[in-house]
C-alpha cells in the first residue's frame, strides 16, 4: 500500500474502564492509519478490543470507557479533525456526516415504534440537511442495496427481515454521504448467503460512493473477500498489519499464523480442527513482555521481559514480533483460507495431534 492519503489516523490510543478490581485497558497504545478509499479489515478474537477501537473512530466508546490518545480524521478538503477532542455538539455533527457506523445487532438498530421513513427524515433534519433532496438520496440508496424504497420507507422495523434491516441500516448510514463507514460485525446475525450478498453489496457501494470501509469481524474467510488490508488484533493491540495477500500467504506473527490455522474448513471433522491453546489475557492484570508469550511456541526470555514494537516486515506489512522472520517455520499453517482446498484433503493439521 502506497503511503498516499490517510483518512483516519490513530495514535497512542488507549481505552480504559475503571473497574472494582482495577483499571481495565481494553485498547492499548494502538497506532493505525486508514487510507482513503481502502477497505481495512480488523480481525481478532472476541474481547480483543476491535469493537472498542472502531467505536473510537466516532468517539463513541460506551460509558464509562475513557479514550485517550489521538484519533484524527482528515477530510478531503479542510482541516484535520481531532475526533477525541470534539465537544458534544461538534460530535453530533461529525458523526454520520463524516464517519458512520453500522454495528452488530442491526436487528435492533431501529426505533421499533417509528417507520423507516422517520429514521431517514429525522437524521436529515437533525443534521440540518435539505429533506426533499435527502429523501431522494435515501430512495436511491435503498435501491442500490436492492430494496424497494416505497415499501421499505413505509414499513416499521418489525415488518422487515434481518437481511432487509441490515441493508436498510447500511442505506441509512450513507444518507449523509459520509466518507468512512465503520462496520462492526455487520453480518453477525445473518445467514451465510445473506453475509455474502452484504459483502458484495458493500463493494458495490464503495465504488459508487467513494467510501472508505473499516470492517470488523472475527470471520476471517469473509474478510479476505472484501478487505484490501488486514489488521490483526490480539490482547487489545494490533499485532500485525499488512495487505490481505501479505497476511494470508506471509503472516509473520505467530498469532496471525495460528489464527489462520484455526479457520474452520467444512472438509475437516470437528474434532480435528485446530485451536490455539491457552486463554486470552486479562485486560486488568497485564503480563510483562509480549502479550502473546504464554501461548506462543516461540516465546523466550526476551519475549517475556520486553514488549515487541511493530517491526517492518516489508513495505506494506508490520508485525509485533521479535522473531517475525522465523514465525513461518515455527507455526506452520495447514491451509490458507483463500486457497481452494485440494479435493480429497482429509486433514487440516500438519503434525501435531494426529
Amino acid at each position, binding site marked *: 500500500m502506497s503511503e498516499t492519503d490517510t483518512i483516519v489516523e490513530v495514535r497512542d490510543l488507549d481505552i480504559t474502564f475503571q473497574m472494582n478490581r482495577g483499571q481495565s485497558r481494553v485498547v492499548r497504545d494502538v497506532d493505525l492509519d486508514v487510507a482513503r478509499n481502502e477497505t481495512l479489515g480488523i480481525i481478532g478474537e472476541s474481547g480483543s478490543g476491535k469493537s472498542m477501537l472502531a467505536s473510537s473512530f*466516532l468517539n*463513541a466508546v*460506551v460509558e464509562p470507557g475513557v479514550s485517550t490518545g489521538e484519533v484524527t480524521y482528515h477530510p478531503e478538503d479542510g482541516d484535520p479533525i481531532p475526533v477525541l477532542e470534539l465537544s458534544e455538539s461538534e*460530535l*453530533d*455533527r*461529525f*458523526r*454520520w*456526516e463524516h464517519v*458512520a*457506523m453500522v*454495528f452488530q*445487532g442491526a*436487528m*435492533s*438498530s*431501529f*426505533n*421499533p*415504534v*417509528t*417507520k423507516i421513513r422517520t429514521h431517514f427524515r*429525522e*437524521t436529515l433534519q*437533525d*443534521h440540518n440537511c435539505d429533506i426533499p433532496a435527502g429523501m431522494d438520496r435515501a430512495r436511491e440508496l435503498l435501491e442500490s442495496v436492492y430494496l424497494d424504497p416505497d415499501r421499505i420507507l413505509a414499513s*416499521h422495523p*418489525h415488518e422487515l427481515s434481518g437481511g432487509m434491516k441490515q441493508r436498510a*441500516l447500511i442505506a*441509512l448510514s450513507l444518507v449523509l454521504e459520509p466518507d468512512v463507514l465503520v462496520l462492526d460485525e455487520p453480518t453477525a446475525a445473518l445467514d451465510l448467503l445473506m453475509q455474502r450478498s452484504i459483502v458484495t453489496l458493500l463493494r458495490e457501494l464503495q465504488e459508487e460512493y467513494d467510501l472508505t470501509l473499516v470492517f470488523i469481524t472475527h470471520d476471517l474467510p469473509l474478510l479476505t473477500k472484501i478487505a484490501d488490508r488486514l489488521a490483526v488484533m490480539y490482547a487489545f493491540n494490533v499485532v500485525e498489519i499488512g495487505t490481505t495477500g501479505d497476511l494470508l500467504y506471509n503472516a509473520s506473527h505467530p498469532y496471525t499464523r495460528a489464527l489462520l490455522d484455526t479457520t474452520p474448513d467444512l472438509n475437516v471433522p470437528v474434532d480435528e480442527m485446530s485451536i490455539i491453546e491457552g486463554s486470552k489475557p486479562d485486560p486488568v492484570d497485564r503480563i510483562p513482555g509480549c502479550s502473546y508469550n504464554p501461548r506462543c511456541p516461540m516465546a523466550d526470555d526476551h519475549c517475556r521481559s520486553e514488549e515487541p514494537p511493530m517491526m517492518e516486515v516489508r513495505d506494506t506489512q508490520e508485525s509485533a514480533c521479535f522473531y517475525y522472520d522465523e514465525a513461518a517455520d515455527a507455526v506452520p499453517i495447514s491451509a490458507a483460507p483463500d486457497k481452494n482446498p485440494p479435493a480429497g484433503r482429509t486433514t487440516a493439521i500438519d503434525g501435531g495431534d494426529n
Partner: protein
Amino acid sequence: MRTDYFVKRVGQAVLTFFATVTLTFVLYRMMPGGPAEALQNVILQQQMGSGNTIDPARVERLVAQYTNLQSDAPLYEQYIQYMSSVFLEQDLGESLYEDASVTSLLAERIPWSMLISVYAMVIGYTVSIVLGAVMAFKEKSRFDSISSIVVIGLNSTPYYVVGILFIFFFGIRNEFFPTGGRVGLGVEEGFNAAFMQSIAYHAALPVLSMSVLGLGTALTMRGNSVRVLGEDYLRVAKLRGLRNSRIATQYVGRNAILPMYTQFMIGIAGVLSSSVIVEEIFSYPGVGLLVYDAIQVRNYPVLMGSLIVFTLVTIVAILIADLTYGFIDPRISSGGTDE
C-alpha cells in the same frame, strides 16, 4: 382482521359488563335483608309512624315502583325486570331516601368525581413519568437512590392515610385548604373566576392524596427507561447525531411509556374505586360519597346504579386501551388475532 378484532373485543366488553351486573344483582339479592326487604321495612316504618293501616298490597306496589321489581317474584323475574328497565328504559330506579331518580343523582355527582379523578391521574402519572425518566437518566446517582426510597415509601403508604395527614397538616394545623365540601358557601355558581377558584381550592387535597396512587408508576417508568437506554437503537440514534431532545422523547420516552399505556387505562378504574374512600375522608360530594352513604343506609338502587356506572367506565377504559394500542404501538396492530 381489524374488524374481527374490533367485534371480538367489543363483544368481550359487553359480555363482561352483563356478567358483572348480573353477578352483583344476584349477590345483592342473596344478602340477608336485600333491597326489597329493606325498602319494605322503610315503608312499614313510615306507615306505622303516621298511624295508617298497613295494606300489604300497597306496600308491594310502592316497593315495585321504587326498585323496579316485585319483591315476591322469583329471582329470575326480578332480574329480567331490572335488566329490561336498565337497558331498555335507561331507568336505574328511584333512591330509597331522596325523592330523586338514581340517574339524576348520579348525573349530578359524576362530574365532580371525574374532576378529582382526572386531575389526580394526570398529576400522578405526569409526575411519575417525569420523575422516573429523570431517575433513569441519572441512574445510580444520589438523586436516583433518594427518589427511589421516597417513591417506594409513598407508594406503600395508603392514599387514605395520606389524605388524613393532609387534612391534619394543611386543613387543621394550617388552614391552607378546606377540610371538606366541593365549593365555598355563597359563591355564585357559573362560569366565573371565583367559582372556578373555589372548586380548585376544594379539590386540591383530594386530588393530591389520590395522585399518590399513580406514583408507583415512577418506578415502572424508571425501569422501562433504563431498559430502553441500553437498547441498540438508542446507541445508533446517538451515533447518528440526533438531537438529545428527539432521543429523549421519540426514543426513550415513547418506548418506555408504551408498555404502561394499558396500565394507565386500568388505573382509571383504580382511581374511581378509591374515590369512595377519598371522598368520604374529605366529605367531597361525588359519586364515591354517594356510594358510601348508600352503603350505610342500604340504599340498594343507588348502589346498583353506581356500580353499573363504575363497571361501565372501567370496561370502556380497558376497551379503549385495547382498541387504540395498535395505533400507538405499530407492532401490535397486525397481531390482534393471535392473542
